[in-house]
């Protein structure tokens, strides 16, 4: 089967990244500056941007007053549309799909996509009131909060626990994922944990937060912003930087087909997403040079390695323990350090790293001859059995 007509028809042409604590800036200001950096990177101007998307884990809902001013106004983009989009950690994948439809119809020639957070700065305030982790916010419709499910670590640790019970996976094996990603982070000066290598003993000795999860199974709480520009392949050739082509995209929802199977706790909705994305690109996982797998916690990486087929179901523990995802391993995973060791900007973390790897801009951690990079997203509602329903897969390539 050949490629889908949409494969390679669109490309990312500019990237702007702001990382590290931003105590003196709002999300909006971080966003405006990240977008300016992306324009500069692409050699474009504000007038070129026909539309803008604000990638937020709360999507279009949430704190509307906060959205009453936008990064686009601050920066002075001349966009004809602007909206918020996202679902938990599934941000860039959804945003790219939406942007393509505007480009396809000529509504915009270039679309700016940006996501920014000040989670770390906010957490410093709520920490003083006795809360731990990310800043505290009540959400309606969220079942577990009154009975002990306070944070993502609360319910995500079930996934690890269930996998451990069904397949015999161990905490040390989950720790191997954390150690491998820290090794990658130590090659990335932008990573929060740059210069701070860890061993498996460090993982095992780190505090147990919600058993089976140790502190070192958890992702970072971060400030920062990432912006990128999507355009058509013909326009991309005239931009300043090297284009990174969108080869394929796929989506899956565990709520749709796992209603009674209760596989959600050891699987993700990879099957449909994989079929769609790899089908469009007409490639296989053997063509993937590096995988930026959504890693809010260690077990999510393990599930995806199994679900995509780098190893068999239940074999993920042994696979990661052998160093397969670390530098020098058979499939480099989360090569910038990922959410675990670099910074947590949802799937934008993996997207930015994939763009850099395909462009050859990844410095000491550059994968040789990186032609295809894969990036995934994950998130959604927290009602069992369809917990964190969505899975997104985006394949990026050096050639269209």
């Amino acid at each position, binding site marked *: 089967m050949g490629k889908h007509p949409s494969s390679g028809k669109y490309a990312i042409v500019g990237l702007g990244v702001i990382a590290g604590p931003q105590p003196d800036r709002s999300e909006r200001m971080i966003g405006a500056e990240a977008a300016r950096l992306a324009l500069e990177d692409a050699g474009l101007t504000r007038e070129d941007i026909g539309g803008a998307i604000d990638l937020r884990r709360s999507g279009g809902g949430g704190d509307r007053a906060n959205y009453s001013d936008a990064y686009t106004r601050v920066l002075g983009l001349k966009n004809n549309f602007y909206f918020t989009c996202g679902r938990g950690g599934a941000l860039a994948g959804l945003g790219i799909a939406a942007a393509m439809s505007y480009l396809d119809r000529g509504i915009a020639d270039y679309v700016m996509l940006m996501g920014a957070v000040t989670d770390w700065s906010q957490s410093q305030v709520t920490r003083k009131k006795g809360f731990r*982790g990310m800043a*505290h916010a009540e959400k309606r419709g969220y079942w577990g*909060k009154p009975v002990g499910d*306070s944070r993502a670590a609360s*319910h995500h*640790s079930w996934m690890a*626990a269930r996998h451990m019970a*069904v397949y015999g996976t161990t905490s040390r094996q989950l720790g191997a994922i954390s150690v491998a990603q820290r090794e990658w982070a130590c090659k990335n000066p932008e990573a929060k944990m740059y210069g701070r290598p860890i061993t498996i003993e460090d993982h095992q000795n780190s505090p147990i937060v919600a058993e089976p*999860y140790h502190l070192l199974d958890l992702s970072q709480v971060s400030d920062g912003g990432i912006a990128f520009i999507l355009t058509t392949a013909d326009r991309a050739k005239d931009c300043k930087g090297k284009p990174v082509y969108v080869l394929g995209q796929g989506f899956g929802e565990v709520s749709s087909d796992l209603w009674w199977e209760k596989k959600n706790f050891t699987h993700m909705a990879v099957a449909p997403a994989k079929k769609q994305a790899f089908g469009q690109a007409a490639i296989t996982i053997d063509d993937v040079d590096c995988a930026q797998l959504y890693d809010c916690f260690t077990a999510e990486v393990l599930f995806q390695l199994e679900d995509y087929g780098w190893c068999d179901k239940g074999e993920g523990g042994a696979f990661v323990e052998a160093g397969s995802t670390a530098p020098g391993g058979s499939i480099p995973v989360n090569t910038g350090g990922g959410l675990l060791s670099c910074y947590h900007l949802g799937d934008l973390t993996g997207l930015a790293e994939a763009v850099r790897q395909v462009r050859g801009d990844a410095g000491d951690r550059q994968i040789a001859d990186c032609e295809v990079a894969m990036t995934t997203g994950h998130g959604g509602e927290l009602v069992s059995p369809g917990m964190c329903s969505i899975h997104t897969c985006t394949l990026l390539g050096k050639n269209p």
Partner: protein
Amino acid sequence: MTAQPLVLTVTDEWKKPWPSIDQDNEAFWDGLKEHKLLVWKCQDCGAVYWPKAYCQNHDNKPFAENCEWVPASGRGRIFAFNIHRWAFHPGFKEELPYVYALVELDEGPLISSQMVGDDLPDDIHTVGQPVEIVFEDHPNEGFTLPKFRMVKD
């Protein structure tokens, strides 16, 4: 197995996140106050859901009018659990460490809550332990929380 489910009464001031009660689950929360664990059952085919949903097994009538809330047995088995050693919310600090379990009810659906009692699961590699419902009344706040405790098989 006990004939009547255990009921606890807590009069301490509520310092945790409040239950999120809306049009979809109000009947469920009313049931808890009457010490019933309600699940959503299709009268046509007997399929059981929690939370509320259209029945998945056949073309449905307008908003699941063939479904109704019915009392569940209150028994089930642990599907997955964790042991919190950090209180992300300060309201849980005094209860550390606490076990938070995902329970597969005998009727099928999964529901999650805190485990109570002295007999608690502790081996994270094991699942399938039998549990039963405990109703925790909060009369000052006007709600009842469903919790679970271990029982003998």
